[in-house]
């Protein structure tokens, strides 16, 4: 009975915070099918480790760790290889248009832009946009607070330059 209650509690917490999982999936995948697959995998990993969630930190904070660990290490989807350069150029646009019809145009642009970034940089950008404190970023990624601060300043600068370039272009 208690395990059923546990499961119900977990599902309700996941339900409340599902947008966060969607954000991670959106950042680390480039198609709707891969997004759904990653969402499922993160949900499974969250549920499997839910016993170890002791409530010391916020549920959402704990979700970043499990979500990012799943996206960065546990889950690898083979990318389909397309040899033609012409085709490759066209694919991201098609993917973005088909992905989320409701999504804000600037966010769609952002996701497309950061698709080429490294997996670690994507994690840093996500944590920056989520407005996380340096300590929490450091703890999530396993880096020092000082380095988290330095990295965040670089990420901010990079995002700013990207926005400026977009306006200029």
């Amino acid at each position: 009975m208690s395990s059923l209650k546990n499961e119900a509690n977990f599902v309700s917490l996941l339900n409340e915070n599902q947008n966060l999982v969607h954000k991670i999936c959106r950042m680390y995948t480039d198609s709707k099918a891969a997004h759904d697959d990653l969402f499922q995998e993160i949900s499974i990993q969250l549920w499997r480790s839910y016993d170890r969630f002791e409530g010391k930190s916020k549920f959402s904070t704990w979700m970043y760790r499990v979500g990012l660990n799943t996206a960065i290490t546990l889950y690898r989807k083979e990318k389909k290889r397309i040899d033609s350069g012409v085709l490759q150029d066209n694919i991201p646009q098609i993917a973005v248009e088909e992905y989320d019809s409701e999504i804000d145009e600037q966010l769609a642009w952002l996701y497309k832009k950061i698709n080429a970034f490294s997996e670690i940089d994507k994690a840093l950008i996500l944590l920056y946009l989520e407005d996380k404190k340096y300590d929490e970023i450091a703890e999530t990624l396993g880096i020092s607070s000082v380095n988290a601060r330095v990295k965040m300043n670089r990420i901010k600068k990079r995002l700013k330059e990207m926005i400026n370039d977009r306006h200029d272009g």
Partner: protein
Amino acid sequence: MDELKLLKNKWANQKFDKQYSAEELNGLIQKKSKSSIKYIFYLSVAEFFLYISIPFIVPNYYESFDYYKSLNLYEFSIAISVIGYILLLYFMLRFFRNYKRISVTDSVKGHLSTILNTRRAVNQYIYFSLGILLVFLCVVMYSALLFDENLVAFQEKKDSIVMIIFIIGIVISLIIGVFGLLYYFLYGRLLNPLKKNEKELMNINH
């Protein structure tokens, strides 16, 4: 700075097409994990057991000790076998200790490092084993050329010691080559992205 604030604002309020219901989420968490990393560990365990089972699957494994005796290498071959199994035990313990430490709730760097260290124990075991095997083969080969009557007679007849060494060299290179390719396909593709991420996080800390 305002532009960034605006972006953060949009980020915080973004909506996604798909919103799962509680029932759907309940269904999702019952499904099987598709994580590909776990296969690395299944394969690692299989490798260890393959090494343990060598005496049982190699034909005439125990008879080969009689041959080593004839080459005056009996004690040497026993010592090599004992060292081989001590190494196996040590690396298996290391492997399972690290494996138990892997936790998805760890920090990203911690998680990457424990996964990679777990696998590294297997890799190091392979390198040590291959190294010992190579030393053993060289010693047996050298002794065989000195004491094996068939080979001694063969040398006298054809004087082809260079040829024999050449053939042995090719066989050893082929074995190492096949192992290398197998490793590249089995592990390289899965582990290289993890190594890249670990390195990137280490660089941030330096």
